[in-house]
């Protein structure tokens, strides 16, 4: 991601009135910041406030300091949910990003028939609402009139069981991959399009083959895009909610109310009325996500300097 210092360098050279403070920019930034403060900063502040209190049936609300956080960090249900999303992150994200990378390289290679067609078709699932995507895949996974039941009939036994305990994360992973592989492909493809043509000409003069060009020119040029796509995917994995929540009625015994940390926070608030504890869960997850995203960004940019 670009840092403010780069933008600084690209600002117009300041004129003679350098020292006079120029407030005109606030006309443009002000409206955004007002809404941002109300819809973004205020909820964060309110969650922080809530998380240090506890409400009991007897005795009312009292200040408990960090007790809720200590509770979350020693809460088996929280860590079970965390384990699910961590596993999901480690398996699904690399698969999705590698598929997206292969597709982007193929479409950019100029060796494909109808590459424009592939670009748009692969991207289409991104436009499908998550609810519809999950309902669709849920039906297809299902026993009633799904494709899986057609397949099982064909085999003659119940071989494929997407809702079984061992397979549910893979089933969810497939839905998420389907939705986002094209989006990531487009991020990579857009970055590939910005490589100057002279680099390819030089590589050709040097007699470099396709794979050599990919390794020495394309992959280095993609580093920034890969870091960004990885960060977005990490955030998406840790916040997993829609897919398991909509699939829950289909696999009620496998998908628990604490299947992911986000589902846990949601159910604590809306089924359990434990708002204070729920706020602490949301904050702990937010901090973990931000720290990991930050580390990925640091590692990504450090490689760039080498």
């Amino acid at each position, binding site marked *: *991601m670009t840092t403010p210092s780069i933008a600084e360098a690209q600002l117009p050279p300041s004129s003679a009135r350098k020292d006079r403070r120029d407030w005109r920019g606030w006309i443009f930034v002000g409206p955004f910041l007002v809404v941002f403060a109300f819809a973004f900063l205020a*909820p964060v502040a309110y*969650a922080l406030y809530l998380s240090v209190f506890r409400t009991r049936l007897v005795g009312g609300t009292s200040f408990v300091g960090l007790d809720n956080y200590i509770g979350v960090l020693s809460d088996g249900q929280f860590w079970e949910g965390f384990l699910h999303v961590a596993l999901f992150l480690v398996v699904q994200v690399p698969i999705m990003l590698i598929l997206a990378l292969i597709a982007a390289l193929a479409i950019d290679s100029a060796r*494909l028939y109808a590459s424009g067609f592939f670009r748009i078709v692969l991207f289409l699932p991104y436009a499908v609402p998550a609810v519809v995507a999950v309902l669709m895949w849920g039906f297809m996974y299902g026993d009633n*009139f799904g494709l899986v039941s057609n397949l099982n009939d064909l085999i003659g036994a119940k071989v494929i069981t997407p809702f079984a305990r061992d397979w549910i994360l893979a089933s969810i992973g497939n839905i998420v991959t389907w939705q986002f592989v094209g989006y990531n492909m487009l991020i990579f493809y857009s970055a590939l399009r910005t490589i100057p043509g002279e680099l390819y000409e030089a590589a050709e003069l040097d007699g470099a083959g396709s794979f050599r060009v990919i390794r020495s020119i394309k992959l280095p040029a993609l580093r920034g895009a890969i870091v960004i796509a990885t960060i977005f995917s990490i955030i998406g994995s840790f916040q997993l909610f829609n897919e398991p929540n909509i699939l829950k009625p289909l696999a009620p015994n496998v998908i628990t109310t604490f299947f992911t940390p986000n589902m846990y926070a949601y159910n604590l608030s809306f089924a359990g009325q434990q708002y204070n504890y729920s706020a602490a869960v*949301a904050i702990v997850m937010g901090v973990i996500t931000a720290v990991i995203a930050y580390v990925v960004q640091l590692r990504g940019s450090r490689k760039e300097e080498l």
Partner: protein
Amino acid sequence: MATTAPARRKAHNPRNPRKSVALTVMLSIFALYSVIPLFWLVVNASKTQAGLFSSFGLWFDGDFALFQNIAETFTYRDGIFVRWFANTLLYVVVGAGGATLLATLAGYGLAKYRFPGRRAVFAVVLGAIAIPGTALAVPTFLLFSQLGLTNTPWAIIIPSLISPFGLYLIWVYTIDAVPTEILEAARMDGASELRTFFTISIKLLSPGIVTVLLFTVVATWNNYFLPLIMLSDPTWYPLTVGLNQWNAQATGVAAQPIYNLVLAGSLITVIPIVLAFLVLQRYWQSGLSAGSVKQ
């Protein structure tokens, strides 16, 4: 467009390489994976409730009931689906439209003006990109319920108005697309800053703006978590929450499965957004490549 992406390479490779059949076949399998669920949706949205259970999943049933299903979707329960559709449009027009306007103004302001507090604004907004809407949803709900905003359209619209990623994209786009000399010239002519923005800069920024608009439209059209927790009154539901409620009534006590309507409703929900992407692809693709120049 004269002002699309900055300096992109024209020809891909100096010599056009031979097309590869193997590569095309590989990508075709990929494309099938992307398209089969959508094809499945079209096929099954055209079946009756009984036909869904009696016919093969990937092909049409004997009686083609698509239009019947669509008509029934719009009239079921006094046309609640029409209401949900209108709600969704409201959230998209005000939420995504407002988000695009705010992000465009702010991204432009950050790119073209050096004002006190600019660095702080940058730090806060770039930090915000790392925090997704869903992490904020529960705290936002708690705050909004204190303020009496839950169960009103504002509960959906206000959080939708913020798009840190949109701001980032416009900021990057502005640096290349709006030359400072033009702004200086307009100032010489005595135009105010806002006037300059709305008459000159906004035209230069249009591919970037369309890109941000499309992505915020997708985000609000597809929004599920936020309306799910903010709304308990079905009359304010958007399509996504409504459809899932219809699906849920197939299980439990007094189950009333209406899978055919869920499927037809899903198809109706998907079509506008897919069309928007196809029609506007020229714009958002150039906007995206410009955005990635700076990454």
